[in-house]
């Protein structure tokens, strides 16, 4: 169904269209050329005839009718006469001298010119028909003088032009169709290659790719873009698959524990205290599962961008104050120092609830990993790259090579496997950051982790000279 032939391709149609345009322009060009050449010949004829008339008049004035007759006879017999026509005739039309046998019969008049048909007889017996253009005068004494020129050249030119036109049109059409066929076959071949790859991918060969010719032409560029898109899709599919596997894996263990506990509680001989404990533990497991699903849903919601509707402008410094108010006792309980630096004045468009949840997740992480006696720093303010909100701890940090991977759901570093947590915290922070057009930057706090949420510079932010001068 894909191979419906070259004639249906847009390339072929385009080639035909070009042929038509090209043919039209050839016609226009030749037409213009013909028109101007024709006019030039016309002018030349007029000039030649007029100057001959002048010369003959002079001769007549100087040498009378005899001289004129002689001059005409001389001209008419001249071998290089060319296309000039002369006739000196009596009033009755009888030829006296010249190279025309008799006074022309069917004559058309046009702007002082006489137009008539002539026949030229060659010595070989051939007869050549053409048209002539002439002027005539009546000399005193009733003698008629006709000086003209054969239009042979113009007719030849016209014939040549028509021939040239026919040939070039034929060539254009042939080249157009041939080129169109050739071109569309080439294009169709390249497109078929892409379609084949798409078909292969559809039928399961997901790592199939369009091969490049190496010429770097537009098809190569298209194929390269497609290949890179396919790579990205394959990577995303793989990551979705790994998330799915991770979900299944991470949920299987709590479900197994839940099942075990319920089974124990359902045993007829279980003491009521043990049964109660088992049920309680089962509920705890269920709560943990619900929390995991809630976190996944929150990530999905942040990624879908649905919450963007509930954004308002706020100063991240207020979130720092709120979070310190909420977390300070807990930090103190764990022997950690909680420091805040909130420089007011930054404005971001944010969903207050979600942004606070992101901050709380970062603080939860910091609390989890900072060693006793360590320090947690929460800050906000108009940073150099844009408004900024961040949390830093003095824990083990994240190795530089892992800082991208830990944003993916369920990814937990080996050293943190033993600590409780779902591996969704940073994913949620990352998703919330993206929702706000902000960037989550994970950096080395030497020692520890420094997590910064860097927001885009707000449009219409205070750019008064005083503010600008403060910039470092």
């Amino acid at each position, binding site marked *: 169904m894909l191979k419906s032939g070259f004639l249906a391709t847009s390339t072929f149609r385009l080639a035909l269209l070009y042929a038509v345009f090209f043919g039209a322009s050839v016609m226009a060009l030749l037409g213009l050329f013909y028109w101007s050449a024709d006019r030039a010949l016309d002018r030349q004829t007029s000039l030649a005839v007029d100057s001959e008339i002048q010369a003959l008049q002079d001769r007549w004035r100087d040498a009378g009718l005899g001289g004129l007759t002689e001059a005409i006879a001389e001209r008419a017999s001249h071998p290089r006469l060319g296309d000039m026509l002369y006739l000196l005739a009596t009033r009755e039309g009888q030829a006296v001298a010249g190279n025309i046998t008799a006074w022309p019969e069917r004559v058309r008049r046009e702007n002082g010119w006489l137009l008539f048909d002539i026949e030229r007889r060659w010595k070989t017996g051939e007869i050549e028909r053409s048209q002539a253009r002439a002027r005539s005068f009546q000399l005193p004494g009733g003698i008629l003088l006709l000086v003209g020129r054969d239009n042979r050249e113009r007719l030849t030119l016209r014939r040549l032009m028509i021939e040239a036109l026919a040939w070039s049109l034929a060539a254009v059409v042939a080249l157009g169709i041939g080129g169109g066929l050739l071109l569309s076959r080439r294009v169709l071949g390249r497109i078929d290659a892409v379609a084949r790859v798409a078909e292969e991918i559809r039928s399961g060969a997901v790592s199939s790719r369009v091969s490049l010719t190496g010429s770097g032409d537009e098809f190569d560029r298209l194929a390269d873009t497609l290949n890179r898109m396919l790579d990205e899709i394959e990577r995303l599919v793989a990551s979705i698959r790994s998330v799915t596997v991770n979900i299944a894996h991470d949920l299987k263990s709590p479900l197994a524990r839940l099942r075990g506990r319920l089974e124990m509680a359902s045993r007829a001989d279980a003491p009521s205290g043990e049964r109660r404990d088992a049920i309680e533990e089962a509920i705890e497991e269920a709560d943990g599962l*619900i929390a995991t699903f809630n976190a996944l849903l929150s990530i999905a919601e942040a990624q879908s961008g649905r*919450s963007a509707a509930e954004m308002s402008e706020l100063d991240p410094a207020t979130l720092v104050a709120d979070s310190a108010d909420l977390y300070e006792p807990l930090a103190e309980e764990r022997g950690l120092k909680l420091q805040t630096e909130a420089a007011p004045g930054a404005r971001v468009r944010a969903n207050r609830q979600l942004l*606070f949840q992101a901050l*709380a997740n970062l603080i939860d992480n910091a609390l989890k990993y900072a060693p006793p006696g360590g320090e947690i720093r929460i800050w906000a303010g108009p940073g150099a790259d844009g408004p900024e909100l961040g949390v830093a701890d003095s824990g083990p940090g994240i190795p530089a090579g892992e800082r991208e991977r830990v944003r993916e759901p369920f990814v937990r570093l080996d050293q943190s496997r033993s600590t409780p947590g779902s591996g969704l915290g940073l994913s949620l922070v990352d998703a919330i950051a993206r929702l706000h057009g902000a960037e989550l930057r994970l950096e080395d706090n030497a020692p520890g982790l420094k997590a910064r949420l860097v927001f885009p510079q707000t449009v219409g932010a205070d750019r008064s000279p005083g503010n600008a001068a403060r910039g470092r």
Partner: protein
Amino acid sequence: MTGGAAPDWASAPTHGIVEAHSRPPADAMRILLIEDDATTAAYVERALGECGYLVERVGDGRDGLFRATEGGYDLILLDRMLPGLDGLSVVAALRAAKVQTPVLILSALGQVDDRVKGLRAGGDDYLTKPFAFAELLARVEALLRRKSAPAQEVTRLSLGDLEMDLLRREVRRAGRLIELKPREFRLLEYLMRHAGQVVTRTMLLEGVWDYHFDPQTNVIDVHVSRLRQKIDRGFEPPLLHTVRGAGYMMRA
């Protein structure tokens, strides 16, 4: 508040499993449950019934709206996704008809925006499914309390020998002045306003800090235990009780 009829929380031993107890039917509160999922409905109906509430159940939005407009209910529990007429439209229609019965929206949609939409439509509180029954009961009681004690400017709160002066920002127990930090004062005020009721951790986070999320750490417990240090230490009897698996309660 109905005398000593509150469930015996201090001895309620498990998450969400509430011991049956009796409440005089004469002052039983009537609750309309609009919920299409039979399992959830049966569970809520039975558990609230065991706590002494009269629960009537309707399975779709249109009937729910009809019954709710007839009136006579103290509280409406409303599922958000219903056949016939969805939950948000039911609340909006009720409020448009000037029915002021408190509405607690139950929803599987738990995201920030869903909550905002639910409250904006006229709901009084919002609870995400699946929920612990203790959380539901605490919120039901808070709403019923709010209804029976209409909002009036309170300047003093007291429980046993604990007194709070909201104007002078002073707290005294047995006549002794107790120094509280501003957030401890707000926390105590919230607990005192809900004295005799279970207050869950998420209710505290919402009511005192105005944030709605599930804290993954025991961040709220630390606040409560600090407050307890100040108001209960060295005094008898303890006023701030932990209700296992549910939350906290101020009780003399």
